[in-house]
Every structure is written in C-alpha cells, then in structure tokens.
C-alpha cells in the first residue's frame, strides 16, 4: 500500500470541498471493504482519502410518510438489516441487507460505498431498482437527485461526476398492493458474492400481475430491467407454465457476464431458475414440485 493523506471532514460540504481541492488525487473512503483491498494490491494509489466516517447525519435512517424511506448513504448493511424502520416499511430491503456478503462486511461496509463502487457481484442495486429508489448526490455546487434506473451505467461505472458524493437513498412510500420479492443465488454455499440475483415487484390483482418490475443483477454488468418479461407477465394470470415461460424469456433477454464465477450459459440457467421460482412464489405457487 502506498502512503496517503487521510482526511476526515465534519460536514458534507467540507467533504465535497476537499474532493474538489484534491481533484483526481482524492478518493472517497466510505467503509473500505473494497477500497482497502484495491490499495493493498496497489490497483489504486490515491494521494488523499476523504473519509465520510465522521458524517453522522449520513448514517441516519428515517421514514417520512410523504417522502418515503430515507437511508443515509453511510448506513452500514447491518444498520439497514436491523433497522426497525426498514423492517416495518421495506422488509425486503432489510432481508437483502442482512444476507449480503458476510457478517464482517455487513458490519463495516456502507450502502453508499456499495452503490458507488458498482461491483456487479452484489445485492443492493437490483433490489433498490425494483423498489424505484432515487439517489441524492451532492457536489460542490449543489445537490441533484437521480432515479436508480440511471445510476448504474456499466461494470464498476455509475452516473456520478468526480468530486460528487452519494448522500442518500430514497425509497418512495410503499404501495400496500405491491409486493416485492428478492432472491440471491450463490454458486456454492461457500460463496459470499451472488452469481445472480433477481428482484420482482408486482401488483397482484385477483391472480393477474400488474405493474411488474423484474430486475436481474449480479449476472449482468449492471442491473438489467427485463422489459420483455415484464410485458409478458403484465395482465397475465400466473400458472406454473407461465412462470416457466417467463423464466425462459428472462434467460434469453439478459446480457450475462462470463467469468470465473460462472460462464454465460451457467448465469442464464441460474437466472432461469430464479425467475421461475420468484414468479411462482409471487403467484403463491409451489415451485419445488415442478420438474
């Protein structure tokens, strides 16, 4: 690891000012579980680390009936998993955060760090995308909000400018008629990173699916909205056959990653299985007995 200066701003505006001052030399430290590995392997050698660790306001999690669930970007995964507020309003988010990676990472890594790093082999992006999250990003010249749909651009690439900080994740007030399902799949039980994950939000109107949002993550360079499958499922009464058809379509529609954790064919197969299971589950069908 090469030497660096470690800065601890006390306010967000101080943090953005520091990032502006040091330009490309600076790097944000938001938990460090990924960054420290990169530094130790000398894949990165920033001269300055700007730690957000002292920005307590960025750890807050609160619920506002009009705004929805507001999660500070410096909330750790375990803060989210254990938060009564999150569990009450968005249990699927608490469950997702509680199963992410491993206990050490959940106790140290933050949701904001996770999103900004944009490693595809992780859980939050797909789940938050399904829930229609909106992100607040602050720079030296003010704040802006962007929908989650526009955030993940590619493999390790997000829609942020140098010097900007992700400060908050907002989930709109939950629609009681919409249910969200989320499932990750690990290649083997010993893995801590998903080989694929899937988030499904549906309004179940008397057996027929409406307002379907289906997102595949971890198996694709960035979370991918499966429009074709969404269209196929919309307005349809879901049977085992429909779930199987949706699964085949999902496997077809996705743009998979191919690497040491699983090649393209394997990723498609896993997404096929996940889709069939999640769609069946959303329709209260038993997926286990189907062959």
């Amino acid at each position: 690891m090469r030497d660096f200066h470690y800065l601890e701003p006390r306010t967000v505006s101080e943090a953005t000012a520091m990032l502006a001052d040091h330009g490309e030399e600076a790097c944000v430290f938001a938990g460090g579980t990924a960054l420290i590995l990169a530094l130790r392997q000398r894949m990165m050698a920033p001269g300055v680390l700007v730690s957000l660790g002292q920005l307590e306001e960025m750890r807050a999690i609160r619920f506002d009936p009009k705004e929805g669930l507001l999660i500070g970007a410096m909330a750790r995964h375990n803060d989210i998993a254990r938060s009564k507020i999150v569990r009450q309003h968005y249990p699927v988010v608490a469950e997702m955060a509680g199963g992410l990676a491993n206990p050490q990472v959940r106790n140290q890594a933050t949701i904001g760090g996770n999103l900004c790093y944009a490693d595809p082999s992780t859980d939050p992006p797909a789940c938050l995308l399904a829930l229609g999250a909106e992100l607040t990003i602050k720079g030296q010249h003010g704040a802006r909000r962007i929908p989650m749909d526009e955030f993940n651009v590619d493999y390790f690439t997000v829609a942020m400018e140098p010097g900007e900080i992700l400060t908050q994740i907002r989930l709109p007030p939950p629609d009681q008629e919409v249910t969200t399902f989320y499932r990750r799949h690990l290649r083997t039980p010993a893995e801590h990173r998903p080989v694929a994950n899937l988030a499904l939000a549906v309004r179940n109107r008397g057996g027929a699916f409406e307002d379907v949002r289906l997102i595949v993550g971890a198996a694709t360079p960035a979370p991918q909205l499966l429009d074709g499958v969404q269209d196929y499922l919309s307005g349809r009464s879901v049977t085992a056959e429909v779930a199987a058809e949706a699964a085949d379509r999902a496997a077809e529609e996705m743009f998979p990653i191919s690497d040491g954790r699983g090649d393209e064919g394997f990723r498609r197969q896993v997404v096929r299985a996940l889709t069939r299971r999640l769609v069946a589950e959303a329709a209260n069908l038993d997926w286990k007995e189907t062959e």
Partner: protein
Amino acid sequence: MNAFAPGLPTPQVTSQEKALGRATYAGDLKIAGMLHAKLLRSPHAHARILNVDVSRAIALPGVRAVFTGDDVPQRAWGVKHKQQHVLAREVVRFVGEEIAAVVAIDEDTAEEALDLIRVEYEPLPALIDPSQALEPNAVKVHPGGNLADEIGIVRGDVDSAFAEADIVHEETYTTHSQYPGYMEPMATLATTDGSGKLTVWTATQSVFLARQRLAEALDRPVSTVRVVQPTVGGGFGGKIIEERSSVIAGFLAAATDRPVRLCLSRIDDMLSGAFSVPMKIRLKMGMTRDGRITAKDVSIRADCGAYAGLAPEVMLVTAMRSDNMQRLEHTRSHAQLVYTHTMPRGAFRGFGGTQMAFALNSHLTAMADLAGIDPIELHRQNAIRTGDLSIHGWKIGSCGLPECLNQIEGAIGWTEKRSRPKQRGVLRRGIGMAAAMHVSGNRTMGNWDGSTIVLKVNEDGRVVVLTSEADVGQGSNTMLSQICAHELGVPLSHVSVQTPDTDFTPYCLGSIASRVTINAGKAMIKAAREARETILAAAAEKLGCDAIDLTIEDGVVQSTSNANHFAKLPDICRYHIFRHGGEGIHIKATHDPDTVMMDGDHYGNIAPAYSFAAQAVEVEVDTETGQVRLIESWLSDDCGKAINPLAVHGQSNGAAVQAIGWTLCEELQFEEGRLMNGNLADYTMPTADSVPEMHSSIVESMDPNGPLGAKGASETAILPGAPAIANAVFDAIGVRITDLPITPEKILAAIAAQKEKRDA
C-alpha cells in the same frame, strides 16, 4: 482425578494467549535493524532468464540489496530430487517461481522496488497438461525427462482373481489440487549473529527438517543454523519442507548479515504453490456376487508440477495405503509421477489418501449397487480386523472400522433414508457414505520414527516440557500437558510445553504423518513416570519411608499407609537439589516404535498403529442450479483413546469441512499455468455459515501400541468426505461425478446428459 485427565475434554493450553491476541507468530517478531523482503515472481510458465537488470531497484532510496539467481548457492536442494535453488537460476519452470528478492527498510519500499527490476526472458514452450508429459515429443521440464517417479506393486495373482470375480467394474477418477488454506500465510524472520550463525523463526511443522533443508539450500553446516518455531497458524502439510519462502528468508539474512523479515501476502502464498497433488486414477475391481472383493488393479498418473518435493511419497500412499483397509489378497498398482510447468504440489493433510479414498469409495458404492448390497454392508464385510496382517505387511493392532460403520449408519438413519422413495422434485436429497484408514506414524525418514521428551521439574514443583514436535494448532501441546499432569500428579496449569528450537529442544521429526500423539505421547508417559520415580525416591529419603507407599496427587506427595507422611512437591524438588551431590530434576526419555521401514517391494509394518474413519452425509441437489448443499454430516473416527475428545472433535469436524471445500467449493482456476483466483474472495473455502452442524463421534479401539491406547486423529477424518458426498449426489439424482470438484456446471451437464439419454 483432575478435571483435564486424559480422556476428558480439555480446552487447548494455547487458547488463552490466542484469544487475547498475545500468541506470537513469526510475522509478529521484530528485531532492531530488521529489514523487509519482497519477491519477484516469474510471469512465464517456462522461460530462459536472459538478463535481470536490478540497477534501478537498487537505486531506490530505502532498498538495501537485491538478489537474483546468480547470487544464490549453486547447490540444489530438494527432498530426494535435488533440483531447486534459493532463487531460480537460468530457467523458470512455473508461473510464480521466485527469480529475485529485494531487501529494503520496509515492505512498501521493497514492493516498489520489484516494479523497477527489468527481466529479459526468452519464453519457451510450456508443458501444462500432465497427460502430455510422457509423450515422446513433450517439452522437457527437467533434462532427465518428465517422469519424476514410478511405482509398481504386485501382490498375489491379480489376473486369476479377476477371472474368479462375478462382477468387474472399471472407472477413471480425477482429483484436483487443494490449497491448504491455513489462517497464517508463510512468515519468517531470519537473522545472523556476530559469529555468523543463522537463526530462523518460521512457520513450520518441523524445526529439524526445516534446519536440514536450510543447511542444504544455503550450503552450510547444519549446526550453523538454528530454527525456532513461533506460534503457527495451521500447516495441513504445506509447512513441512516444500514451501520455499523460509529458505529465501534465511539466504537473505545471511547474505545481508541483517535481520530480514519475509511475510507472504495471501496472494503470494497461493502463488507459491504448496497445493495437493492432482491425480488421475484408473481403478478396476473384481467382486464375487456376495460381496467379497477378489482383485484390485490401480493405475495412477500424478502431477507434481515443476519440482518433485514430497510428491513421490504422496503418490506411494495413493498407490497402496487404502489396500490395507480391507482383507485383500490380490492387488496391483502402477503409478507414475510427472513434471509439468506448473507450481509444485505435494504434502497435504491425508498425504495422498484423499485422492484414492475418492476413487475407492465411489467405486465400492457403484459395485455395491451392481451387486444389490448395501454399501455399508460391503465395507463391513471386507473390512480388515484387529489382529490382521494386511496385504502390505501392516500389523493391525486395533481396528474400529466396523464400529465406525455402525455409528454412522445409526446416526444418520441410514436404513430408513435409503428406503424412502426417490424424490422427483426440483430439490432432491440423497445419502452417501465412505470409509478410510490412515497411519499413526510412518517409519520413512531414515530408520527412526522416535520422539524424545526432556522434562524438567522446577524447584516449585512445576514442569517444563521440551519437545520439538510442533503444535501448529492441532493441540499436541495440550495432549502432552494432559499426559504429563496425569502421570506426575500435578495440575494441568503447572505444565508448560516449550516452543521447538533446534538448539535447545531434543531432535524430533515434527508434526507429520499423524505421528505426534502416538510417538511423543509414549515418550511423554515414559518421561513423566521416570520423573515421578525420581521424586518419590527423594521423598522416601526425606520422609523416611518406602517409595512404594507414596503417591503424588495434586502436587502433594502422600503416603498411602501413613497419613502423617506427606510433603508438598516443591519441598521435595528443592530437597532434590539442595543437598550434597544434588541436582535439578532433568529427565530425558525417547520412544521409538517397534516398526520397520518398507522394503524394496513396499512391504512392511511402517506404523505402530492405524486409524480408521467412516462418514455418512445427506445432500440436497438443486437440479435447476446444480448447487449441492450438505444437509447432514456424521463422521466417526477411530483414533483409539481420545486423550482430548474436545480436540478430536475439532480435528474431525475441521477435516470434514476441509473435505467439503475440496469437493464442492474450492477450485483453483488456471489459464496456461497461471493461477487466476489466487485470493480468498475468488478461491472460496467453506465458512461457518456454509456448512450444516457437523457431527463427529469417536471410536476408542484402544491400540496396544498407543499411549493409553491412543492413535492419530488429525488426518483420517479428511479422507471419506469427498466420496461420501459424491455417493450422496448419485443417490439423489442418479448421476455419478467422477472428477472433482463437483461443480454446479458438472451437475447440470450430467442431468442434461441423463435426460438426453432417457429421451433418446
């Protein structure tokens, strides 16, 4: 009886210092003026080193020295094959081979300097695939060719025995390399003193074997090297004598005449090799209709990578050890070890046993199915028994294998689960089992497998034990302390086992071949009993009574016939010194077991005792994702008397989990000999949350040659895991995976092929 007497669960005597973070590992040590080393590794599998320009690296402020292959001794080192140098000279033979070393004031500077070394290579064609190694036109890894070793063993009349068989089954199995995955990557601190003597603190399983190798590699007399073992964070075979970094550290300290610390990062540790030997095993067996094994024919091709190391010995175990588990009369084994331009492979927990256990147990379950016999029954029927002489001349003084089989059969509910209807759903469960044997000791490194204990009783009645058998986490210090405290009649806390140090502790071979409990345990009993006699003789003299009437309990010498005759142990120990002609109590005892070295035909009783184990598992196979999940695991270990049942369960469960890792989770990914997943995020070892509750039970077969009846308990338990899982997968989905690891892709492909066959 004290609370931690042999047989009672005893927390490790090292646990407090470890829990407090006070245990001192090699990487924790500091000496004034200490320098730090980093190693430059070859990016090529095979290349000629044309030129190494270190000028820019030396010029970097903080760099003290840079060494290359030109600077190291010409003498080659190795186990039997002398073929390695401290740093590669002229040719590199695997990706990761060390070609230069930088010594600098800190690790970051040393690392920085590595980037400044310019190496000119002439890349040469590389031999990566072991199946090509013996082709006539194959690229040669060494001038003598690619055959590193060859073994042929024939007993009985194999061909006639096959003719006698009702069922003959033949199959080929392949096994892959596993990383030992110890918590502590290799770390060494080495320094010279004013006389030029070299002292090396290193993570090792054997200080004396380490010293021997350092002396050879650095081409200096043995007595000019001192090796000390600090706390070691696991070895699993990888820290015996094949790792290279301690040799490099010793060289750097001697060459710079300064203390040099060389700690490998995890990535470095993995690039160094020290993986298990991958093998391809063709197995053919004959059996009568009623389940008697008549013949066994084995042929093996093993890949040791670029250097032989201990791989010939590993392959010998694969070739013949499992034959001794059954009453066989006709066996044939032919094994070839080949070089490739890949990292060296060698010793690993089980020492070649896991590879053959996978083939044999997969095979036996398949044959049991062919004969319509329960596989447990097949094992039971053919199992060797107490008092038998095995086909290779092994005297089986105790065999708890039938009891191990009974235990796992009952524990997992074998009969009930076997008779349930086959599941047709997406998730399918199945059960499988396997059995194995291992040595406790092995008379193989010269005609001695002994162990020496030096025991000192201090003037306060407390005991210091000197041994060079290494506690690398498996718990031998606790075992020795329990025996000593029990035999001597002192509390466990009054015994302290000192760290191995070649200048101060007696010659021992170290923690290999599951030999420490049986051999050092025996020596410990002998030493403690002699100390007890010495103390009682002195007490008898002081108290004016007969030694025969005296006992020691909880640190007090007490007469059994006269309650008024007693003395505290410290009083007696002081009395032993403070009198004319007195001295401190210093006892030395050696136990060398009554075993023989194998003869030229690999025949002979090499170990004082043999351990057995059996395991049954239930798995659930996800037929859509190919994931195999363990539901239950029951392992039964016949380790003779369990001196510390807590430690035995720890070893059994740890070994079972390591076997799960090898079978289902861990896979080294290579591209043209280059390791692609050399880190623990991408090379995924099982973690606590990835395995079910692990169950282990103990069979105490009470070996007549063991200390209090004990045998080795660290290695047997890793053997049955892989085949038990493979057999359970077969039971679940009806397809047999014969090449490890059992990956989701292989499961899915096998299911697809099965479906295609059914639909055709």
